[in-house]
């Protein structure tokens, strides 16, 4: 396994006055694993902790609990300096294409930053060549290196961000909503670029998105999160083809179908109510306040992740009772 996490938790202190401090649990008890060259999709609503999880996995957010292994080595509790040594192999592409580039640096300087850190002995000319090659690899002219980020469109900026992430040929790239800030037409191009790079460079992705179609297109494995907890995880085809958790089913139901005939006659169940505050999550199962299947025991005990099928794990007390409790989703 390239990356393996067990019972990971991330907590933030939120100031709650002078003496008492409140803690926000952004991620709680998340377990996942990712093999070399694979793509793990993480889906969930905004604020469900998926970005925080992605950052924690590469040491950009502090882990409060759990066990994290990178290529078999324990990396939870690593110092900032220790993480810095690993960054050659762990990279990230951010959600905000322009915001993740330093406005006072040329594109070339931004893309070359990992090189400057990890290969400081490289000559100026050699560095320039590498930057040019990498920019061309992501579909930009090598001459883009001398210009500034604000001269580029969102899609181009995201290509620059991708170039920076892959210039050292890392083993894992965390893609934190890499296309959600882009126009739909550009999203497809960037997703295809990510797929080409994965296949050419043998990258593994942790692909965080709320866009189910994009995750389906890229992922080999999928994790569904809700309010900081993993609801369901498994192979892509199992999650999309035979979703077991009521939340997963609702998420998939919420996706419109591009055929008005089907769309009109579709019956679907959508979550009711608002997402509860992560500062005071419900007891027991966190999804119970919006779950049509919720019953008394859901409030009493927190469901543990259990294996429903090989590799397909789910945290729900009532998953076996499906499909009686919910409408059967239309064929997808």
């Amino acid at each position, binding site marked *: 396994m390239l990356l393996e996490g067990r019972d990971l938790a991330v907590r933030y202190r939120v100031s709650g006055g002078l003496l008492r401090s409140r803690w926000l649990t952004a991620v709680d008890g998340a377990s996942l694993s990712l093999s070399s060259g694979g793509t793990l999709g993480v889906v969930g609503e905004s604020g469900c902790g998926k970005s925080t999880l992605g950052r924690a996995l590469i040491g*950009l957010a502090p882990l409060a609990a759990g066990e994290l292994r990178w290529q078999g080595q324990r990396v939870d509790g690593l110092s900032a300096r220790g993480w810095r040594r690993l960054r050659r192999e762990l*990279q990230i592409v951010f959600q905000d294409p322009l915001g993740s580039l330093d406005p006072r640096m040329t594109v070339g300087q931004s893309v070359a*930053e990992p090189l400057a*850190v990890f290969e400081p002995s490289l000559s100026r000319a050699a560095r320039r060549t590498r930057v040019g090659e990498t920019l061309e690899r992501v579909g930009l002219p090598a001459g883009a290196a001398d210009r500034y980020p604000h001269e580029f469109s969102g899609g181009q900026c995201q290509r620059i961000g991708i170039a920076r992430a892959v210039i050292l040929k890392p083993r894992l790239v965390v893609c934190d909503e890499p296309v959600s800030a882009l126009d739909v037409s550009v999203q497809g191009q960037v997703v295809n670029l990510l797929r080409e790079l994965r296949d050419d460079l043998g990258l593994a992705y942790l692909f965080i998105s709320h866009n189910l179609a994009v995750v389906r297109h890229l992922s080999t494995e999928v994790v569904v999160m809700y309010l900081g907890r993993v609801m369901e995880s498994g192979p892509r085809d199992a999650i999309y083809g035979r979703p077991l958790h009521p939340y997963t089913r609702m998420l998939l139901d919420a996706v419109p179908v591009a055929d008005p005939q089907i769309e009109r006659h579709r019956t679907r169940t959508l979550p009711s109510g608002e997402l509860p505050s992560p500062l005071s999550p419900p007891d027991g199962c966190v999804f119970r306040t919006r779950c049509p299947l919720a019953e008394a025991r859901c409030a009493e005990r927190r469901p543990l992740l259990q294996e429903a099928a090989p590799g397909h794990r789910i945290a729900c007390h009532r998953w076996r009772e499906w499909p009686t409790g919910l409408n059967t989703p239309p064929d997808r």
Partner: protein
Amino acid sequence: MASAGLWSDAWARLAANRAAMTSAALLVVLTLLALLGPMSSPYAPDAIDWEHMAVPPSLESGHWLGTDRLGRDLFVRTLHGARLSLAVALLATLVSLLIGVTWGAVAGFAGGRTDALMMRAVDVLYALPQVFFVIILTVLFDRSVFLLFVAIGAVGWLTMARVVRGQALALRQREFVEAAVASGAGPVRIVFGHIIPNLMGPVIVYATLMIPQMILVESFLSFLGIGIQEPLASLGNLIADGSAEMETAPWILLVPASCLVLIVFSFNFLGDGLRDALDPRER
């Protein structure tokens, strides 16, 4: 597409600001005059002309801005004073820039306990009255121009550190700083490579507005007699000198005072212009 960069946009806006450009031109002229002007005059700044004591400005006497009560040429002395005042202000600003920017950027980027400790140190120093501080220094050491740099700069960097720390705190939250961390950059590289370049805008503005304050502080200290000492001339002690003769020979006060006003106004206009030009909210 012109590979413009953010600075050239700012430059274009500054060039369109008439008050700022006039002030900048005036400052260049004044600086050149202060550096070269005294050479064009036959009088030395401390030479006493026994024939012409406290004469008003006139062309006939050869002292076209008049002389003080010891018969020293006011044109030459004012330019010498402006030179010294400018030098003190520029150096003190430079000192505050170096210390304040580094201190503030490190505190703001480090955050947490480090930030709290560093900024409490600033608060403590801030609480010391400046004049009191300078008097202690002059008691402990000899009076010198160098001491004046230290005294003014030591106080000036405090506000600079606060301004910079606030900016750095905001920058730390930006995604490109996180991107630099993810690229493997260490804290030194992030502070000097990303944080400081991105806060240069407000720093330049603040430094420009700081120079006139420094000139005023220097003049104030010299006026009190704990700054630049006779026979050296600074705008402060020239004004102190002139204020004694205000009723009988007003030009002795008016000449250096107008020079001071001109310098301070120009720097303020230029600083305001720079702020408007570099303000990112305008974009």
